[in-house]
């Protein structure tokens, strides 16, 4: 930039006034209000149909340069000359002897078309009588080559399209629609995916994708409002032991809430409090609890220690560690991928991420495992018949061929997937439907309760269900939770490839092989020792006291090697932290003389069994927390800070970070380090 402009710039900078603070606030408020209003008006995707012929013609005229235009018109004239004139036909008909350059300069006849061939022709000329048919051979090959050249480079793309319009016209509307969607996904993956008809019509994939992708976003990616729905209940209230000594809930090994929190925090805002399910935050991390050695497939350990955020209360930390059966002995696995291919999945963090995720998982399957793929959009189709995992290329090809488009009919797809899973099951096989969706069930039966009922039915057939959520903005967390809880399965939210690695690879065995079904936890507190208690998290998993012994009531599944953690905050009798006063007209019933704090009961069913087994243990001592329990406590505190910090007092993010940092342990996968980073992010966002 010159000096005079520099002067001008500094002058202008001095002259520019600061915006009026009040107007600034008003304008921002106005924008935000309009934004909110605007969301409502565009829930329906607006379908814009513009005549494609005109768009393309315009595009052709825009990209057509004078040079390319001249070349092609000349080529057309040359072809016309050959085909229509008797002389040209003679040229074509004559047999082709060895090409011999001639003294006749073909450039005179077709000057523009033949830059390359003229060079050929300038080679030394043997003294041979020029013959007409040689000229013809040259002529023809030049014309063909010129046409070929025109088809390849970008300049020629539009031109080629004009020429091949009739070929394209052959493509049915259906295939054409398909190609449009493929084009936007990513151009590299399109090549194998394009249907044969189209790949014949458009050999130059890159350029055709560019041409076709423009009209695509007119109607493929509908603008979406934020329609996320989260499943959560009000935080568990404080319970008075003498009124209600028993607390019952089902285990929850889902991890979706943690990934959702992470995705919100890394996007720069605090998560919706309803998205925070504290138990899922805690259970996201692997814990190093005592491995089971008894007759049961899992073992509970109970720790009681001082609450980090309140010196006058204690945390009862219940850790359950599932056994890890020898991986080699695992039965063959039948996986039915049920993949949502509705139009809304057409985003980089949805279908392409899903493809990569499944590819990761595929590498960890055994040759005898079987995989099938069912896709659902407006209707459901089987994209891949049951195929042994060793046929990797077949499966990958089917995955790559997935394209997104149309509405969503979750139920139709589920029915087909379950039927397929049942067909695949033989003997001891473990069958599982893995549903991957961005949460849309907006065609047909999308009432979560209707779907739930269907899945509950199917649960009896022994097929498990895992729900993987992708993408933000329309995530129906509530539907996902409802499906996973009712279908003997887990729900996870995949926001990054490393999350896919954790869910589908590191936890492959745990996530896919249940070792105990319907695991329920019941804790009875001793009113002589514990005045009040509060269960942290598990709001959506609460069970009625009588449900504990009722085997018909469904509960959570424990996978191989999984650990589950539950934390109570208890107030000892006589503690200054007690929030409730003793009743005046009813004698406190502290009849027990035991010094136990409480009694833990666990019920579970072995996979395939209908009757449950019971594990019981009492817990007494107040001890020092070990690193695992202390880290879980830090996460519990973090979850409460994000959700509802009524009981935390002055304890804040700084304390949570310090506590988590001090108890990070070995952390081989770096999950805990990441948690500390998220806490820091939350801290800076909350201030």
């Amino acid at each position, binding site marked *: *930039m*010159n000096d*005079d*402009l520099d002067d*001008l*710039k500094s*002058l*202008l900078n001095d*002259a*520019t*006034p*600061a*915006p*009026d603070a009040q*107007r*600034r606030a*008003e*304008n*921002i408020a*106005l*924008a*935000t209000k*309009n*934004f*909110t*209003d*605007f*969301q409502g008006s565009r829930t329906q995707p607006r379908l814009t149909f513009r005549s494609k012929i005109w768009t393309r013609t315009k595009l052709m005229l825009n990209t057509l340069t004078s040079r390319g235009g001249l070349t092609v018109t000349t080529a057309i004239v040359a072809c016309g000359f050959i085909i229509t004139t008797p002389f040209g036909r003679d040229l074509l008909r004559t047999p082709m002897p060895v090409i011999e350059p001639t003294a006749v300069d073909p450039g005179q006849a077709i000057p523009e078309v033949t830059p390359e061939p003229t060079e050929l022709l300038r080679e030394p000329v043997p003294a041979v009588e020029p013959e007409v048919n040689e000229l013809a051979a040259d002529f023809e090959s030049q014309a063909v080559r010129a046409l070929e050249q025109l088809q390849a480079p970008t300049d020629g793309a539009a031109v080629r399209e004009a020429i091949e319009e009739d070929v394209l016209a052959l493509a049915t509307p259906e295939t054409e629609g398909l190609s449009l969607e493929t084009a936007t996904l990513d151009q590299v993956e399109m090549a194998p995916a394009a249907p044969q008809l189209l790949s014949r019509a458009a050999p130059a994939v890159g350029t055709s994708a560019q041409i076709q992708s423009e009209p695509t976003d007119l109607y493929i990616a509908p*603008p*979406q*409002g*934020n*329609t996320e729905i989260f499943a959560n209940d009000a935080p568990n209230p404080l319970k008075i032991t003498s009124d209600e000594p028993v607390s019952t809930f089902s285990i929850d090994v889902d991890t979706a809430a943690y990934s959702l929190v992470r995705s919100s925090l*890394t*996007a*720069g*805002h605090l998560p919706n409090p309803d998205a925070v399910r504290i138990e899922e935050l805690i259970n996201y991390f692997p814990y190093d609890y005592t491995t089971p050695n008894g007759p049961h497939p899992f073992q509970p350990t109970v720790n009681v220690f001082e609450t980090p955020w309140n010196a006058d209360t204690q945390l009862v930390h219940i850790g359950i560690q599932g056994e890890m059966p020898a991986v080699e002995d695992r039965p063959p696995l039948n996986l039915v991928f049920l993949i949502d291919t509705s139009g809304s999945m057409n985003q980089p963090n949805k279908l392409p991420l899903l493809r990569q995720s499944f590819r990761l998982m595929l590498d960890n399957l055994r040759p005898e495992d079987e995989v099938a793929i069912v896709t659902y959009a407006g209707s459901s189709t089987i994209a891949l018949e049951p195929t042994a995992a060793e046929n990797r290329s077949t499966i990958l090809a089917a995955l790559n061929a997935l394209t997104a488009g149309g509405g969503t009919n979750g139920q139709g797809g589920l029915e087909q997937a379950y039927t397929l899973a049942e067909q695949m099951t033989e003997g001891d096989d473990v069958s599982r439907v893995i549903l991957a969706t961005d949460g849309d069930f907006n065609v047909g039966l999308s009432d979560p309760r209707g779907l739930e009922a269907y899945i509950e039915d199917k649960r009896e057939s022994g097929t498990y269900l895992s729900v993987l959520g992708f993408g*933000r*903005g*329309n995530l129906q967390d509530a539907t996902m939770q409802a499906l996973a809880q009712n279908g003997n399965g887990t729900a996870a939210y995949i926001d990054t490839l490393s999350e896919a690695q954790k869910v589908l690879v590191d936890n492959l065995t745990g996530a896919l092989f249940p070792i105990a079904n319907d695991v329920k936890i019941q804790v009875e507190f001793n009113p002589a020792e514990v005045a009040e208690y509060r269960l942290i998290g598990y709001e959506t998993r609460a069970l009625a006291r009588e449900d504990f012994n009722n085997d018909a009531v469904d509960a959570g599944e424990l996978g191989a090697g999984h650990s589950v953690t539950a934390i109570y905050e208890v107030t000892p009798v006589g503690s200054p932290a007690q929030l409730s006063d003793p009743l005046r007209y009813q004698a406190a019933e502290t009849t027990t003389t035991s010094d136990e704090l409480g009694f833990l009961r666990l019920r579970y069913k072995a996979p395939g069994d209908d009757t449950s087994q019971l594990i019981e243990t009492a817990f007494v001592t107040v001890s020092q927390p070990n690193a695992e329990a202390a880290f879980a406590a830090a996460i519990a505190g973090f979850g409460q800070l994000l959700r509802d910090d009524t009981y935390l007092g002055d304890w804040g993010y700084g304390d949570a970070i310090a506590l988590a940092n001090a108890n990070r342990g070995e952390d081989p996968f770096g999950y805990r380090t990441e948690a500390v980073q998220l806490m*820091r*992010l939350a801290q*800076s*966002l909350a201030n």
Partner: protein
Amino acid sequence: MRMTVTDEDLAIAAQNGDEQAFSSLIARQYDRLFRLCFRLTGAKAEAEDLTQDICAALPAKLASYKQQSKVTTWLYRVAVNAAHDRRRKQASHTRAADGWGDWEVNRQAAIAENADRADWLTTAMNALPNDLRDTLALVLDDMTHAETADILGISEGTVSWRLSEARKHLKTLKEKEDV
């Protein structure tokens, strides 16, 4: 750490309906936007109004943001178009309203403000033809020629030409003043 979230991330989140992302995006960009509006209009009151117009219409314009481009480029394009619209409206208003009404009040306020400032710069900017002024405003706002060309939908050569034209205009103006 907070700043690791780029404007582009926010815009994409806002496109997906995230209200918080949208308001933080606006809050981040408001001052820049106002600065450009001032340069496009040359008067504070006008700039405030133009910024308000843009803010009001921005949610609807959000759909036009493409993920590949920079948020500032997109925002500036919206601003320049809004400025055009405003000028056009004012022109027809002047014809129709015969010099009275709201517009006249605004204009008088602007004139008074300019007189207060009494520096040659604002006058000079106002004296430039609109297209030259737009180009100059963008280039002086640290946009490269390529970005300016992209925002205005013209070629880079045109940007350079317009800049030299603007320089000529300013020079003659200065000479006149010196005389």
